[in-house]
């Protein structure tokens, strides 16, 4: 019985069979709490795939990308990734939710399939998995930049943090508190909220009570919008600082006027003062007739990164692709689809220039461009 099993696994791993297409399944959140980010990521990837296929695909092979929905549930995401692995994929795209990625990245690692994720939780790239690659900053990259901004930009001595009590939120909060301690800024109040929470009245009262110089908000899109509405309703005057999610397109749309005045660090944004990004934004809007958020860029650039690396090594070899991607820097001049120069380090984290932004009457305005951490 043991011999039979090894034969099955060997067949699956090599993917030797000659196919006309290269199989890159998208396993993503199309329902549940992560529906917003997931849909954006998928559409970004689909846009890139259509463009690449139009130009003949990668090494003369068209990309086929079957989609499956993880319902933002780790258990379901594990099953779907297992199913995708069974279809002998070259690369797996997604998911975005950190909780799901942590469940299924073990599978990709065992099957030696590179996984391009949109997740940002810090510990994903610290588990020594050589097959996981981010398409946006991990929390441990973006938090230092925010901390510097709070210390230097706002000159705040005390800060409060409001975060969503799930793996995404907790990871961000822990990293943020560490960075605050490093810059001896006192965290005067630490408010945990529920994923899917609807009533933030009490939390706002607590924040007002703490009266910190600045308030750092780290929650998912819908909760951020509800919080901002409640904050404006109770007349919070202190600056509200956030990460890419808080200044995302969806939050601005949901929170309406309440989003104005929110500042924060944005690793990826469709409003970035970069020509390629603006071009992407226009193409995306024409194709899917809705404004993309930062997850759209993640999906799009993720696919192009795979294309560039594969063309660099000249053949479809999963293990080699993973090795090549580590330490690789892709410039827009070499690969327009990458939009902004990006470097992947040894454990799969990505480093790019990033921006400080502020929401001004319903639009995200870039205030300052921050250099790559590496340079």
């Amino acid at each position, binding site marked *: 019985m043991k011999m039979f*099993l090894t034969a099955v696994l060997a067949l699956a791993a090599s993917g030797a069979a000659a196919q006309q297409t290269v199989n890159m399944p998208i396993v993503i959140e199309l329902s549940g709490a992560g529906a917003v980010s997931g849909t954006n990521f998928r559409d970004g990837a689909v846009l890139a795939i259509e463009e690449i296929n139009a130009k003949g695909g990668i090494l003369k092979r068209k990309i086929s990308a079957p989609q499956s929905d993880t319902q933002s549930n*780790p258990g379901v995401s594990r099953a779907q990734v297992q199913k995708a692995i*069974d279809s002998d994929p070259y690369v797996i795209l997604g998911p975005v939710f950190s909780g799901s990625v942590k*469940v299924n990245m*073990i599978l990709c690692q065992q099957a030696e399939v590179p996984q391009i994720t949109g997740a940002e939780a810090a*510990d994903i790239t610290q588990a020594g998995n050589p097959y996981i690659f981010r398409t946006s900053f991990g929390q441990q990259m973006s938090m230092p930049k925010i901390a510097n901004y709070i210390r230097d930009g706002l000159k705040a001595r005390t800060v409060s943090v409001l975060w969503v009590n*799930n793996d995404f939120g907790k990871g961000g909060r822990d990293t943020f508190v560490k960075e605050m301690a490093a810059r001896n800024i006192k965290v005067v109040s630490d408010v945990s909220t529920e994923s899917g929470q609807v009533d933030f009245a009490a939390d706002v009262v607590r924040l007002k009570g703490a009266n910190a110089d600045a308030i750092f908000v780290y929650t998912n899109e819908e909760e951020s919008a509800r919080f901002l509405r409640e904050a404006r309703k109770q007349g919070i005057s202190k600056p509200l600082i956030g990460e890419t999610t808080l200044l995302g397109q969806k939050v601005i749309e949901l929170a309406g006027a309440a989003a104005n005045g929110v500042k924060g660090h944005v690793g990826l944004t469709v409003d970035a003062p970069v020509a390629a990004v603006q071009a992407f934004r226009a193409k995306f809007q024409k194709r899917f007739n809705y404004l993309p958020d930062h997850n759209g860029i993640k999906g799009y650039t993720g696919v192009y990164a795979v294309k560039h690396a594969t063309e660099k090594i000249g053949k479809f070899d999963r293990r080699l692709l993973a090795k090549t991607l580590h330490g690789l820097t892709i410039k827009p001049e070499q690969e327009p689809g990458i939009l902004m120069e990006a470097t992947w380090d040894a454990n799969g984290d990505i480093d790019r220039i990033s921006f400080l932004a502020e929401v001004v009457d319903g639009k995200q305005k870039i205030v300052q461009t921050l250099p790559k951490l590496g340079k």
Partner: protein
Amino acid sequence: MKKALALAVLALVVAAPFGLKPYGIYLLSLWAVMTIAAIGLNLTLGYAGQISLAQASFVGIGAYTAALLTTQGWPLGAAFALAALLCFVIGWLLGYPALRVAHHYLAFVTLAFATLVYLILRNEEWLTRGVYGISGIPRPTLLGWSTKAPLDFYFFCLGVLVLASAAAWWLLRSPWGRAFTALRENPIRASSLGIDTRRYTLMAFAIGSALGGIAGVLYAPLVQFIEPTAFTLGLSFNLLLMVIVGGAGRFAGPFLGAAVSVLLPEWLRFSEGLYLMIYAVFVIVLLAFCPSGLLGLAERLRDSWPRFFKSAT
């Protein structure tokens, strides 16, 4: 006739995984694990008539016990023992409200208990690593037989399922089984015949919960990464629907109910998001026409067309 049917199902279940890819094997293992938890719930709800929406919490407790122990090097056997004991005691305590209140109140109490357990699992980070969950849960090696590969682990789950079902079958065939049925049918009459309704109710809760715990101990190595959101009310509702759809108070109910709940989404995969809706409508229609589930339906068909069935078997 029943014995032949049981053996046929067993043979099918043993042969089934060979033709399948790891994803299919994963589904079958999940079916085996869920059936164990459903057998526990069927005992509490189907046989003793006490509704519990807390079965997911016991699966959670079992899973966390296994995860915490095996990641520290303890054998899975220790996890089985500890989880079963822990869930038995907690199940016993959870039984006390059942003695004081009518069914629907009990549903709320167990619902509240389940949500509380979820909060504890998520917030008590020192014990359960909170929202980060626990990863890298090893699969056991049993007397040299490593169950790391999906196929081996499936047979391991199947073995535990067979053991659990045998124990449940034996329990329900014993005087206890009769006492449970009496407790469900008519507690006042049962107590006048000397049946200590208090103790049997508590026992029903305790054993049902222990089986939930055992299912949890298997679930942890199956998915190798657990975090609190997997054990919320959704799972309790799912298990409840499994018992009801299969046929509460019937031995084979949980097996059939689990199969419908785990495998149905696959067959209806083509319908993308619709399968949950189809499943929900199916449950409502079933409850309206045949509250005793699919098995009840089968019995009703068999009774109403004796000629056809008699001649066929």
